[in-house]
């Protein structure tokens, strides 16, 4: 054991149990609690329109944790995460409007619906390698969008409005919507993050990584790769479903455009930029991409006002796909471990500070 359980300058673990703890030191535990405490105060200082962006980042973070479970930890490319979000959003909307369920039941129903559909889409993985699964998820994304458009129950992709919620006697209104939802989304995100951190410690979590790294070796060790992959899909799309349910309430209505192929690509970009197979990356990625989107948005308006492009050239429209695509490509080429790696390195630096080595 190290001299102190608060500071640790090296790896003093001698038992597997120690390796499996969620937090290596009390300091880590403490810093998380302090961080959450600070986050709880954030809405008091943040401008309102920015609070909206923070809420979006947190919802996308839930979906990106899920995407990381399938793509990052298990190595199954998923180009349909937005469609799984959509499944959750529509299930939540139906539960809230048709069954009149309150939001704290409707959102988990969205998660379960996501998990159910995800398991079904993941079924081919019993027979297929990861390459083919990427194509299957793409097909699901396209079939989902078409299917919603042809289902009168789902307003054919038009808006299904969700009722405003009431929490602890506070009714969400237009003016406190972002504020109320901040305090609803944050606990969900923290719980979902901790939940995955915990699952990862179990044999199920580790079996996913084993399958990603070498499926034959994993099979030799007694892991059933097919089951592991289906499980990854199930958990990943559960997260997507929860995110979709949150997004449905947060956007006040479900509209198909919010769950299209471009959103799936955007989620993938978030996961890659954040760092595939990393929990901190699942928060950093959405933060980076939403911030990039804001900057590109104002940048494109400025570009458009310059009138330097010939008529007919819509430079502003070009910037979004260009910046997302470049983020994906550049991170994969030069920093495949994503922002999470920078995070890790800076932590490492401060851990040993003031000693250099």
């Amino acid at each position, binding site marked *: 054991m190290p001299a102190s359980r608060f500071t640790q300058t090296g790896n003093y673990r001698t038992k597997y149990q120690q390796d499996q703890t969620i937090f290596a030191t009390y300091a880590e535990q403490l810093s998380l609690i302090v961080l959450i405490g600070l986050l709880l105060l954030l809405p008091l200082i943040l401008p309102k329109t920015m609070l909206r962006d923070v809420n979006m980042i947190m919802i996308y973070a839930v979906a990106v944790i899920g995407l990381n479970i399938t793509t990052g930890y298990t190595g199954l490319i998923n180009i349909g995460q937005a469609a799984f979000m959509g499944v959750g959003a529509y299930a939540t909307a139906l539960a809230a409007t048709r069954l009149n369920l309150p939001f704290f039941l409707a959102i988990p129903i969205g998660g379960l619906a996501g998990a159910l559909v995800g398991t079904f889409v993941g079924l081919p993985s019993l027979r297929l390698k990861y*390459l083919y699964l990427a*194509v*299957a998820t*793409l097909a699901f994304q396209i079939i989902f969008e*078409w299917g919603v458009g*042809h289902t009168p129950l789902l307003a054919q992709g038009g808006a299904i409005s969700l009722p405003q919620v009431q929490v602890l006697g506070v009714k969400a209104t237009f003016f406190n919507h972002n504020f109320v939802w901040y305090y609803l989304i944050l606990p969900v995100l923290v719980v979902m993050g901790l939940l995955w951190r915990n699952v990862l410690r179990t044999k199920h979590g580790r079996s996913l990584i084993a399958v990603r790294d070498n499926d034959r070796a994993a*099979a030799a060790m007694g892991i059933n790769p097919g089951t592991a992959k289906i499980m990854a899909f199930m958990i990943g799309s559960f997260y997507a479903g929860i995110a979709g349910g949150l997004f449905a309430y947060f956007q006040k209505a479900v509209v198909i455009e919010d769950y299209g192929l471009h959103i799936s690509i955007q989620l993938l970009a978030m996961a890659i930029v954040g760092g595939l197979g990393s929990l901190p990356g699942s928060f950093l990625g959405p933060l980076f991409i939403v911030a990039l989107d804001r900057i590109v948005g104002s940048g494109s308006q400025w570009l458009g006002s310059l009138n330097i492009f010939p008529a007919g050239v*819509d430079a502003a429209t070009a910037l979004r796909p*260009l*910046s997302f695509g470049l983020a994906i490509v550049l991170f994969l080429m030069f920093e495949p471990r994503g922002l999470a790696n920078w995070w890790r390195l800076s932590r490492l630096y401060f851990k040993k500070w003031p000693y250099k080595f």
Partner: protein
Amino acid sequence: MDLLPQLLIAGVVIGSVYALAALGFVLIYKSSRVINFAHGQIIATGAFIAFALTQKGVNFWLAGLIAMLATFLLGMLIERVFLRRMVGEPIIAVIMVTIGLSSVIDGLIHLTPYGAGTFGFERPALLTGQGIELFGLPLSKTQIAGVLMALGLLGGFTYFFNKSTLGITMRAVADDQMAAMSVGTSVERVFALAWAAAGLTAAAAGVILGLMSGLTLGGLAGIGLKVFPVVILGGLDSVVGAIVGGMLIGILENLSAGYLDGIVPGGGTREVFPFIILIIVLLIRPYGLFGTKEIERV
């Protein structure tokens, strides 16, 4: 009513473009196991290069050839700049690079005047005038020429792949990289050539589609998505499969538009039917009609 033969013919016309698009896709997969999600964007790039040239007064046929050469080089460039650096990385990382590239090329096309709107080639003199009528379906000369060009290119590539030394080298690398390297084959050169050939056929597909029905970024890039049902049905690594799969998907798509649309409220089934076939093929026969049966069940 002679709707059926008409639908079959219309299916073959569009199917020949799908086959040509799928050919390039298969070439890349066959040699390097990379699923190229940017294929549709390369198709669009080729088509718009040719269109831009004809706008500048270049003869259509010459413009088409220059465009094919340009995407030949573009394919090589993509391989050299982006993919060669990724050698040794897990294959899923390489695939995701192509997803990123598709976004990048999309953005770059939006920087030209061709990002939004519909455009059409000025018909070359050879192809103006009345076409022929088959089973009551008028086919324009552009459509006939398009199908002939597509079939010619497909035949040429199949021959090249089977007979020429380079083609045999490419197949050797596809079969067993290690063994090919040990007999002195430059795997890198083969990869570069596969990408270049994919670029060339992509431009051809784009130009032919543009000639037959018009150019939109969404429509051309959408061919890149339609390629997936084609290659999964035909078999990811089979050149013959790409051709047969392309024709079949073209025909099935038209049959669904012709018959299913009447049954399904709202219709528009052609957009989704190929992808339903894709899922079914994946569940029943994942290596497709002609693909190598090498998918281990893990």
